[in-house]
């Protein structure tokens, strides 16, 4: 059996003839936390959707275990997804349900456990994210950080083998960011799961992940442990890790010559 629970092999994907990914190769070893980093619009979230089978690649394949995701039929894909948990960028909690019901949702849908057992499991999951006391609140009454933690409890409700996090730190205050970092690490280790974290928050991600892939212009431009990447001399990685304004990723969006553009208005 392979040591990698997810493997991406020569993956190309695009919309309307424009390729977003051009032959990406990645592997995600069991039990590790791997970050996928890159600028906004570089297709990081799309990789998670390709792993989840919500999108189909143009070329190449994504394997989860020994199964090629896009070759699975409807029922097999559902079975495969039961091994996964996903934390969406804004939580994606069901707004018509309470915190308790949100976490209980996957259990009610996929198991025939008695209500007392569901209650115990929900309480355990909520306790793990520190929100047992918020069980009766509605999803709409939660702050951004709390919603993210409830969504995390829901994502791990069925003890998945793979947990995917889409921008888990976006819009959070420093305390909530620290809480989420700890939760990702602790839950991953406690459940023996593999975590894939899509983010562009270098400081937070480098503090707890085991391995990092950098993507830009549709390809993996760098990979390695956080320590290796901090020392990297590659211009893109250096600019990204140190947050420099200009570099290989230009400050200006592609535009015609500035002088000519300004003078054009005076010709009229």
């Amino acid at each position, binding site marked *: 059996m392979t040591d990698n629970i997810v493997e991406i092999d020569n993956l190309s994907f695009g919309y309307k003839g424009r390729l977003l990914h051009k032959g990406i190769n990645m592997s995600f070893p069991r039990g590790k936390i791997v970050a996928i980093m890159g600028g906004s619009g570089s297709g990081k979230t799309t990789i998670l959707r390709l792993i989840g089978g919500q999108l189909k690649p143009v070329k190449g394949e994504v394997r989860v275990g020994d199964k090629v995701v896009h070759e699975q039929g409807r029922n097999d894909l559902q079975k495969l*997804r039961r091994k996964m948990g996903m934390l*969406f960028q804004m939580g*994606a909690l069901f*707004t018509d349900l309470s915190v308790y019901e949100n976490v209980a949702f*996957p259990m009610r*849908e996929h198991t025939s456990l008695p209500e007392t057992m569901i209650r115990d499991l929900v309480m355990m999951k909520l306790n793990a994210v520190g929100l047992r006391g918020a069980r009766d609140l509605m999803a709409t009454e939660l702050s951004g950080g709390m919603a993210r933690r409830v*969504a995390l409890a829901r994502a791990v409700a069925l003890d998945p083998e793979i947990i995917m996090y889409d921008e888990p730190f976006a819009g959070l205050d420093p305390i909530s960011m620290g809480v989420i970092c700890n939760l990702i690490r602790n839950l991953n280790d406690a459940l023996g799961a593999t975590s894939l974290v899509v983010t562009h928050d270098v400081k937070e991600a480098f503090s707890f992940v085991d391995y990092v892939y950098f993507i830009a212009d549709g390809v993996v431009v760098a990979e390695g442990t956080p320590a290796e990447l901090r020392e990297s001399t590659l211009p893109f990685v250096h600019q990204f890790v140190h947050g420099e304004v200009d570099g290989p990723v230009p400050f200006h969006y592609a535009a015609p010559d500035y002088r000519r553009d300004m003078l054009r208005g005076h010709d009229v």
Partner: protein
Amino acid sequence: MSDGMVSKLKSALQNFGHRLIDQFWRLGSASRLFGYTLASSGESLRRPFLVIREIYFTGVLSLIIILVSAFFVGMVLALQGYNTLQKYGSSEAIGVLVALSLVRELGPVVTALLFAGRAGTAITAEIGLMKATEQLSAMEMMAVSPIARVIAPRFWGGVISMPLLASLFSMVGILGGYLVAVPLIGVDGGAFWSQMQASVDFREDVMNGFIKSCVFGVACTMIALFEGYDAPPTAEGVSRATTRTVVNSSLAVLGLDFVMTSFMIS
């Protein structure tokens, strides 16, 4: 013809072609969603509380607007009908006029139009926002089919509610007509009810009205669901989808009404 005109004509034709192809795509997507909804219905109907919840949201919560409208429509029908019928000395037939107008046409059609405005827009906005906030994607990633869990229960909730609402509309409309015709105008109450009883046929009139309301239920609910499911996940996208629900449902109801009436009368 100048080059400018040729290019304008070409661009207008291209635009028209794009819109036409886009409409065919949408029709295809809507048919596919309808097929998936029917295929997933067994799963939803096995959990009746999901459908009952939707009957409450689409049916029970629409009751006030439906009943109040029915009451006024019935009263106006009686007033207008009496005005015309008395010229021919047949004002006792007012009960028949009110009942037939409501049971055959106004009951199903006005209920469907009000349903599209009240429940249809709510369905579209809810589904559109669920999509925009990634709730449908989250469900999919939890290996739960959004069509079986969200779309199919709402579909059956709408389809079951519509004929019930149309029946209530006709009943309350007749009551409104009675109140205007008998106590207010002074038409004989016995003639009002007996002529209605003698002239309204169960199979020809009541059943035809029932069939119409079932068809409108399928059309209005499916349009509302599709518009929500297909809406671009933005505030503008959901707002446009909600408008399209009202416009498309109204046109579909009026068009289908003409087609069904032609078949039923012939």
